[in-house]
């Protein structure tokens, strides 16, 4: 027994983030070896997780956690069962090879350190997602994977296509995540459980609740967005703008499976109903066919693989919806097989691209001599992808076909969909495995050369594993299928998987049908491709275009509203703001008839009158100032007088802040004035001056009346007493204002400082854009002399 579960899980969830923080420096010190060095992290996580296989296969569920915001039942809690362990092993195992691969693939890239940082952050988020127990922990990691995916897709941010793809992926998967959050909160409210392990104990209850339908739909939308199910699939092929290791890792082996993971996880909680069955099988089946057909249409290696990934995700969703024991086992096997062969395939595509300079399958040929190892790895993965015997892919497909040949008529329909979908994906697998390597050599942008060991390690190990795993069915039964299947099926499962080729079994005939159809497609691939292209052109509309339309109408609407309200004249916006403010202050009191009595003039001491006098003098100075700058400074005098009043009435903190804010406002206003090259004098017409004066008096008197109304009510001192009584003993501070800011209500302050920082960033950006536009080539630059004079 290794270290305790708590420590291991804490290490697993934190280590990738720490490594991400250090990655750029590690890259600096280790140079070309950085990939191998950084791969130690995922490799050690993999080994740690391997240690969990024993306990998990005996159906023990391991848990660990920290409380975070206990008042809302939010905690950082994790649990390991068969399902999360399998995902964890895939993420860390494949991650190890991806990191090694990235070391060579992006060798010499100026931002390689940053890339390592992003990919390790992603790995940590993904591990957190699958190990999360608390619903909100799950959500946070879910959105973190969307954000890291955004960073990785847009890694090559100087290209417009990459930026657009990153934005699109973030909008779709992040937006789906928000819908999921709503679903998770509803689940929490309905069941009173805030963790997945708790929810699993309530299996069967949610389905009878009146909110079942909306909850199920929200969870499904979240999962479909992440796992790219039609009609939310369009972001995935575009995400191929990312460097190839990212496509291999995020957009085939791990992140896109998060939706599948969630559906599998929720199957006992939400599944088992007709609605669940039909939604998942119909959308999954459609995605399978669309993905397969579009894959054959492509000629770019990565695009072909991206669309087959869509198909595979559809297949998995369909199987989870199907929900029988065989379908679940088939899904588990296919999930593992797919991660292995697709991860390998993507890395092979990247190696070919790296070695020849092109990814266009029609431009590649005869690489068998130049790239023999890649060729072998490609064949091995294609065997698994096509589902030829002994490969893991074969076992998976047999189990899937077995699930569909059990019963009644709809099964036959699904069987047909599966055979066509699988045949299409097999076609793509075979094309990629043979087309670039056989035939006459074709000229490529540069002389083809074999990949380095770092580029080949991943494809070779993953494809060999995918092939020989089929030989260890006994081990797979007890250590993979029983615990994972049990977790999805929420019942003890006893799998009896064995490798056989029995022609009396209808599932075997389904496989044979798939091979025949796939073979025919490979034979006539050019004809099929051009037919599919013609069909696509005939439709002429894609969801991708639809996305652009939605985004651009959003921008147009926002633009129209902005132009109406912000018509370019500052005084108009200010007028709108202040008139609204005056209405907000007066209307409620007028409508409810609670206008306060005007109080008597209080008895004040001479120095209090003094402070008021200063304020009045400041105001008069503003009114009669001849230049704007003088008016601004005079306004500062009035502000200082207010600060003085605060000081006199025993609020030194407030006074202090008021002093500083006044000082800084005067400085910043003066700077803005010079910056905007305003006239130093005010040239308002008399009507305008009267209008502005009326509005200001209305707003000011509104505030005064609200204050009078507030003071007429007896002050409730219970909070003050609470803070006075507790501030020193429990928060170790006598300055209550500060203690409230940094301790009692620190979370508010955290929010506020984030806003302050964001505002600073925004102002910086706006002024920069203005400056850049001003110096943009078409507009003639303002002569330096004149500018100097204007700002002086």
């Amino acid at each position, binding site marked *: 027994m290794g270290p305790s579960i708590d420590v291991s899980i804490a290490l697993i969830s934190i280590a990738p983030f720490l490594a991400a923080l250090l990655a750029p420096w590690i890259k600096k010190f280790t140079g070309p070896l950085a990939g191998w060095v950084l791969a130690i992290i995922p490799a050690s996580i993999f080994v740690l997780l391997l240690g969990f296989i024993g306990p998990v296969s005996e159906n023990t569920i391991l848990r660990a956690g920290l409380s975070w915001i206990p008042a809302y039942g939010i905690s950082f809690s994790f649990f390991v069962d068969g399902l999360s362990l399998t995902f964890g092993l895939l993420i860390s195992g494949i991650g190890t090879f991806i990191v090694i691969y990235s070391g060579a693939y992006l060798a010499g890239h100026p931002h390689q350190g940053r890339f390592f940082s992003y990919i390790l952050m992603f790995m940590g988020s993904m591990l957190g997602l699958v190990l999360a127990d608390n619903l909100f922990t799950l959500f946070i990691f879910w959105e973190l994977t969307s954000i890291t995916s955004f960073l990785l897709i847009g890694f090559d941010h100087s290209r417009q296509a990459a930026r657009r793809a990153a934005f699109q992926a973030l909008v779709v998967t992040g937006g789906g995540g928000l819908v999921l959050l709503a679903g998770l909160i509803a689940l929490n409210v309905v069941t009173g459980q805030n963790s997945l392990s708790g929810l699993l104990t309530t299996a069967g209850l949610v389905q009878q609740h009146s909110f079942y339908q909306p909850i199920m739909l929200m969870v499904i939308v979240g999962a479909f967005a992440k796992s790219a199910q039609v009609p939310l699939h369009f972001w995935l092929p575009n995400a191929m703008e990312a460097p190839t290791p990212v496509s291999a890792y995020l957009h085939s082996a791990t992140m896109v499976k998060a939706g599948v993971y969630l559906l599998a996880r929720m199957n006992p909680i939400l599944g088992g109903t007709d609605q669940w069955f039909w939604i998942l099988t119909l959308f999954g089946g459609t995605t399978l066919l669309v993905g397969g057909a579009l894959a054959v249409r492509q000629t770019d290696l990565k695009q072909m693989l991206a669309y087959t990934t869509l198909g595979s995700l559809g297949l998995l969703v369909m199987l989870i919806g199907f929900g029988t024991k065989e379908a679940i086992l088939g899904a588990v096997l296919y999930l593992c097989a797919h991660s292995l062969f697709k991860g390998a395939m993507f890395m092979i595509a990247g190696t070919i691209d790296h070695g020849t300079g092109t990814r266009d399958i029609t431009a590649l040929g005869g690489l068998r001599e130049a790239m023999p190892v890649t060729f072998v790895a490609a064949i091995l993965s294609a065997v698994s992808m096509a589902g030829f015997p002994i490969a893991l892919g074969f076992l998976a497909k047999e189990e899937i076909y077995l699930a569909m040949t059990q019963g009644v008529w709809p099964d036959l329909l699904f069987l047909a969909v599966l055979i066509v979908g699988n045949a299409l994906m097999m076609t793509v697998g075979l094309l990629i495995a043979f087309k670039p390597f056989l035939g006459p050599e074709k000229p490529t942008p540069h002389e083809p050369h074999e990949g380095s060991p770092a580029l080949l390690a991943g494809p070779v190990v993953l494809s060999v594993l995918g092939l020989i795993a089929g030989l260890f069915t006994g081990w797979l039964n007890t250590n993979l299928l029983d615990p994972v299947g049990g977790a999805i099926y929420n019942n003890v499962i006893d799998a009896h998987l064995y490798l056989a080729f029995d022609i009396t079994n209808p599932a075997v005939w389904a496989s044979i049908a798939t091979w025949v159809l796939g073979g025919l497609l490979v034979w006539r691939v050019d004809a099929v491709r051009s037919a599919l292209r013609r069909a696509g052109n005939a439709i002429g509309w894609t969801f991708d275009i639809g996305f652009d339309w939605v985004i651009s109408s959003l921008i147009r609407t926002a633009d129209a509203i902005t132009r109406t309200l912000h018509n370019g004249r500052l005084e108009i916006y200010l007028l709108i703001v202040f008139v609204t403010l005056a209405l907000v202050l007066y209307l409620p009191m007028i409508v409810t008839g609670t206008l306060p009595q005007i109080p008597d003039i209080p008895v004040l001491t001479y120095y209090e009158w003094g402070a008021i006098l200063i304020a009045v003098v400041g105001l008069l100075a503003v009114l009669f100032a001849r230049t704007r700058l003088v008016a601004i400074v005079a306004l500062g005098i009035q502000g200082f007088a207010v600060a003085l009043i605060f000081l006199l009435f025993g609020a030194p903190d407030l006074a202090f802040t008021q002093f500083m804010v006044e000082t800084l406002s005067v400085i910043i206003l003066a700077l803005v004035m010079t910056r905007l090259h305003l006239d130093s004098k005010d040239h308002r017409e008399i009507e305008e001056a009267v209008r502005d004066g009326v509005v200001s008096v209305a707003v000011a008197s509104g505030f005064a009346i609200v204050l009078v109304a507030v003071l007429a009510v007896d002050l409730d001192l219970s909070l003050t007493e609470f803070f006075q009584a507790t501030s020193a003993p429990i928060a170790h501070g006598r300055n209550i204002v*500060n203690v409230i800011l940094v301790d009692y209500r620190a979370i508010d302050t955290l929010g506020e*400082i984030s806003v302050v920082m964001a505002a600073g960033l925004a102002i910086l950006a706006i002024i*920069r854009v203005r400056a850049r536009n001003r110096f943009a080539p078409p507009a003639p630059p303002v002569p330096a002399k004149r500018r100097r004079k204007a700002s002086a």
Partner: protein
Amino acid sequence: MNTVIFRTVAPGIAALMLVFSIFVLLRGHNEPGGGFIGGLIGASGLAVYGIACGVAEVRRAMVIHPIVLAGFGVFIATLAGLMPLFVDAPFLTGLWWIFELEGQEIALSTPLIFDIGVYAVVVGAVATIALTLENDEEHY
């Protein structure tokens, strides 16, 4: 505004203001003061220096870009909030280490780190705004 007297006195005033701002920051838990006010004083000090000696000089003196300081502030405030998680207390719980050093009682705490974060954000953000506005062209 740019008189010889002002230019000569400004660096001294700015230095005093910065020292005072840190003093206000540190005393904040028991006496009037704190990160927010301290930050405003610090930012005013930088603004004064900028008006007298030019933006380029302030940027050189600050070494890092002020917006980075603001980001750093949010970062360490969040870290201060995360620290209690390691002793199994909720996010943002105050932790205290009170010890004697040469007869003086010294109190270090996560709220202090948090307050330093607030200070950094306020100085950073306000300085960013002021410096960007003061700047006439190209260099941001």
